[in-house]
């Protein structure tokens, strides 16, 4: 059992309340996943020649200024860095590929949690209320967020094994369920260039999507491929730079509820995680169909979002 929550704000004037609206959703899912907690925040986008990297080191005394100095010297540019608990958000003026290659080194004294232009992932072992507090989730501003509360089944309870899993530029994945064919698929994906950091089955799903997208598939195509190639139980929520996607396996044992109002779109493992959202009484509430990809993306005009979820055929 695990808990998943996602919130996308259609009305940008709510952006300053993202954390305040999102934190109660995540905390409501504590019973479904009390051993680790994580969330992906989409906020403060940077231009194509700037990159946001979230790094992690378990020691609270870790000297991040040394890492910052090293990156400043390597990239020959000023960098911004902000430490929050065990994580450090660093913004570098360089292309994503160059930054990725440098920080994904085996000898680096930190783990890479996320890389992108919008996304920041924060995750730790512990109860949702404790993890939310150390990263000050309630005061976060932004356009959307994906969260996960974990009850581990397939691998150890560690920070690296916590969700969300970054799946390439600005994409991330959270998973409720368990995959049966992850060992074989991991070997196959490793031959295709995927680098695995854990024994976790959900990381395999994340890497699967990353490999498919690198091969030129759209997110929707990659998700329909997942229905064919992944064996097991899953409800996935995938965060994207401008929205999120939801997919349930064809058996659909793992729960999911979606809701949409004029102000926001949300998903959760259970309705009770949505019950605190403003205007929920008048929102459309429904259960996503099995084996169907739901994609929410903002429309072409600025922050104006489309008003219905696109159900791919």
């Amino acid at each position, binding site marked *: 059992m695990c808990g998943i929550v996602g919130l996308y704000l259609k009305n940008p004037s709510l952006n300053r309340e993202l954390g305040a609206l999102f934190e109660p959703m995540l905390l409501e899912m504590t019973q479904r996943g009390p051993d680790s907690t994580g969330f992906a925040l989409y906020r403060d986008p940077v231009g194509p020649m700037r990159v946001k990297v979230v790094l992690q080191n378990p020691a609270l005394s870790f000297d991040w200024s040394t890492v910052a100095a090293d990156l400043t010297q390597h990239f020959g540019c000023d960098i911004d860095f902000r430490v929050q608990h065990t994580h450090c958000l660093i913004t570098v003026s360089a292309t994503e590929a160059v930054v990725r290659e440098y920080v994904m080194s085996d000898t680096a004294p930190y783990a890479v949690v996320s890389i992108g232009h919008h996304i920041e992932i924060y995750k730790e072992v512990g109860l949702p209320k404790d993890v939310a507090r150390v990263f000050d989730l309630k005061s976060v501003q932004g356009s959307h967020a994906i969260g996960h509360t974990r009850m581990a089944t397939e691998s150890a309870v560690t920070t690296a094994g916590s969700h969300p899993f970054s799946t390439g530029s600005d994409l991330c994945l959270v998973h409720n369920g368990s995959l049966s064919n992850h060992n074989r698929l991991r070997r196959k994906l490793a031959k295709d260039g995927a680098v695995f950091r854990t024994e976790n089955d959900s990381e395999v799903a994340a890497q699967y999507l990353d490999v498919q997208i690198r091969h030129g598939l759209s997110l929707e195509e990659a998700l329909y491929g997942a229905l064919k190639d992944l064996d097991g139980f899953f409800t996935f929520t995938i965060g994207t730079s401008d929205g999120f996607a939801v997919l349930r396996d*064809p*058996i*659909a044992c793992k*729960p999911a509820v979606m809701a949409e109002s004029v102000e926001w779109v949300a998903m959760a493992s259970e*309705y*009770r995680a949505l*019950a605190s959202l403003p205007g929920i009484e008048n929102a459309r509430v429904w259960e996503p169909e099995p084996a169907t990809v739901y994609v929410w993306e903002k429309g072409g005009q600025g922050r104006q979002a489309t008003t219905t979820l696109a159900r791919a055929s």
Partner: protein
Amino acid sequence: MAGTQSTSPVRTVDLKVATVRELNQALHELAEDGAETDWKILNAAGNHALAVGINARCRVEIMGHVGYYCAGMNKYATLTINGNAATGLAENMMSGLVRLRGDASQSAGATGRGGLLVIEGNAAARCGISLKGLDIVVKGSVGHMSAFMAQRGRMVICGDAGSALGDSLYETQLFVKGKVVDLGADCIEKEMRAEHVEAVEALLAKAGINERAQAFRRYGSARKLYHFNIDHADAY
């Protein structure tokens, strides 16, 4: 109990104030042969196990969406839920009436023994799984694997049915007005005779749903899976 107002003949329980445990305890304390009472439950907010295990003649109205296993094991009581329901609505209900105004998630009415379950919206996968005598009327459609291994009782589905309807069916009778994606193992279409039209008419009337009983098709067990086949005797 906190959150209870007893000035009116309807006992109102606000779940913003009272706990689910307090609510269920109060309902359990009703005597099986006592006078019929009326209850209104406010702010359901997706809480699990609401109004489970009632064993008395009472009317309970729930305001809002409910979580898992609402109205489970219900005996005698009439429940109305003004919202959607999560997994396992009215699981193993024994008798009485449960009416859901919205949509039901998976396994609604699972293993139900008796009474009537009315779902005015759609039901998701595995509706009526292992049914044992309960009647279910669904105004909308049902998801895949509905009536899986269903043994007794009847299901009336006014919309469509998902794939593998009635897989490994025993003696539950299935009536569907819309399309059936496909039938499960040992489930076949059967003739809709006058007595079946009459039965569907009675169930629709009881459920308060206005549909023409003649428009339904009947599905049932081919009885090849659960009966010993003498032609296979040589195989043992």
